[in-house]
């Protein structure tokens, strides 16, 4: 149903329509409105049968999800930033055990310094943990991706994290066609676990594996993860047909057909980028955008195809690797093997403005971008700080 609704609420209702059975929750900004809405739905009896429990930490929350999923219940939780890091051990455990848990990550920067604002550092730091990672471009996409996530997770027996920019999307009240129960029921069958804790047919889950078998176990998990590259487009198509709209799956090109310069990005910045591109197009700059939805597994082939005729590639990062530079840039470079520019923007909620993006596109067009740029960096402040430190020595 079409609603003007807060992103968190839209996600909560989409998740509720997926009939989760166990929801452990631990609060952290900016995910709180999601779990609060779910608590309300469960208490009111609108979401039943469902066990909602408040965990003592994020590590506890993911652990509860692990136990619940292993015992055959559809499990869901949400977190961000420090909370995601606090459960890292459990993240690897969930993917290693092949448990189809779905989790929302309301992307937020990681301290120190302590902060609460949006960037993608949290999920990016966990790109290797074996979870499938999907990034929402807006709240409609966020709602739809959660429905997709449950089906994908249970198909592959792998956990899926749906990332949405904290505050920017979670706390934005936008127009969303919230997936209704009948649409979701038509798309998502009841959870049929690949393996389950059942006294009637006992199995041991979580054995100790040594050098003689670990590599093969990991390799098989890798293959299963790669399988998502085929399943995601198929599922997006199937769900899109039921919902009556297109749902971005792996990658989404915008004005890429004749693009001379392409910006690759993930998340909510894609909307602002589209506006910036339209604006510079009017000035004759043939810019385009490649939005990536599925970041893990990484759609190398799709990215390569989309960028193969583009002369100038800019990767707009919402996080960065200290001491190295871009994170997504590395993956994009692996796909295209031609030089690209990395622009780090919007760390910890610094607004990414259409104006700055237009400036970035103009500089790229005239090859004035440096290999690594921090958009809107306060150079004066940096100079003052460096001088102060230098003076103290």
């Amino acid at each position, binding site marked *: 149903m079409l609603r003007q609704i807060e992103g968190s609420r839209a996600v909560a209702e989409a998740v509720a329509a997926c009939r989760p059975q166990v929801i452990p929750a631990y609060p952290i900004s900016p995910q709180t409105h999601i779990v609060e809405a779910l608590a309300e739905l469960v208490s009111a009896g609108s979401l039943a049968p469902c066990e909602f429990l408040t965990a003592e930490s994020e590590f506890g929350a993911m652990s509860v999800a692990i136990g619940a999923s292993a015992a055959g219940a559809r499990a869901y939780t949400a977190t961000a930033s420090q909370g995601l890091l606090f459960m890292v051990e459990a993240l690897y455990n969930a993917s290693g055990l092949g448990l189809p848990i779905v989790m929302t990550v309301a992307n937020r920067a990681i301290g120190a310094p302590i902060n*609460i604002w949006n960037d993608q550092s949290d999920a990016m730091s966990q790109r290797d943990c074996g979870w499938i990672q999907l990034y929402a471009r*807006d709240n409609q996409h966020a709602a739809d991706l959660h429905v997709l996530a449950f089906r994908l997770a249970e198909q592959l027996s792998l956990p899926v994290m749906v990332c949405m920019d904290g505050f920017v999307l979670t*706390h934005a*009240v*936008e127009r969303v066609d919230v997936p209704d129960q009948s649409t979701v029921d038509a798309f998502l069958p009841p959870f049929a676990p690949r393996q389950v804790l059942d006294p009637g047919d006992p199995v041991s889950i979580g054995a100790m594996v040594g050098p003689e078998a670990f590599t093969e176990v990991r390799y098989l998990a890798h293959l299963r993860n790669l399988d998502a590259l085929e399943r995601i487009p198929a599922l997006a198509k199937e769900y899109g047909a039921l919902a009556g709209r297109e749902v971005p799956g792996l990658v989404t090109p915008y004005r890429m057909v004749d693009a001379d310069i392409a910006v690759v990005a993930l998340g909510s910045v894609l909307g602002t980028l*589209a506006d910036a591109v339209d604006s510079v197009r009017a000035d004759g700059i043939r810019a385009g955008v490649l939005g990536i939805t599925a970041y893990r597994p990484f759609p190398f082939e799709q990215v390569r195809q989309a960028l193969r005729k583009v002369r100038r590639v800019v990767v707009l990062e919402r996080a960065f690797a200290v001491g190295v530079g871009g994170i997504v840039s590395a993956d994009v470079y692996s796909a295209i093997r031609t030089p690209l520019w990395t622009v780090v923007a919007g760390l910890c909620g610094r*607004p990414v403005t*259409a104006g700055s993006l237009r400036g970035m596109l103009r500089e790229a067009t005239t090859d004035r971008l440096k290999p690594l740029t921090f958009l809107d960096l306060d150079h004066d402040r940096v100079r003052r700080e460096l001088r102060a430190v230098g003076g103290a020595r």
Partner: protein
Amino acid sequence: MFQVRIHGRGGQGVVTAAELLAVAAFAEDRYAQAFPSFGSERTGAPVAAFCRIDDHPIRTHEPIAAPDAVVVADPSVLHQVDVLHGLRPDGYLLVNTGRSAAELAISGAVTARLCLVPATDLAREHVGKPLPNAALLGAFAALTGLVRLDSVEAAIRQRFSRPVAERNIAAARAAFDIVHAAQREASNA
């Protein structure tokens, strides 16, 4: 696209005001986007909220740097925060106050479309609490014509329980009437 920035303090319903405005626009089948400037929840701290309204889907997620209208729910932030930053030369400035522009030290050169409304007084009278947001929305509807008053009322009804909603609607209507009357007077003068 019409962009509104609302300034006030935590606890005054600034964020809710932006949301209600978005819902009102939605009721008129327009696209809208509302979001707060984000911070840890804290009553009394300066807060800003944004609302965009358009006939086409809104893609951008950047904060509003060049608003077409600024609403000030608490005049004490007027000289504490740069509430007027980026306001279009002929943009609307709606301030919640019972005092005059001179008393608030707002220069008439800021904008011709300045509107002062005693929203907190109206709220106390109709709602029983000093929550000026509904009254400000009513005033805003009259001032800009961006949304209809009945859309604002529908949004309020959707959000609050019946008795609370009706009281807020009364405040919105009162403010709407005041602004309308002032506009008629100004055009007659």
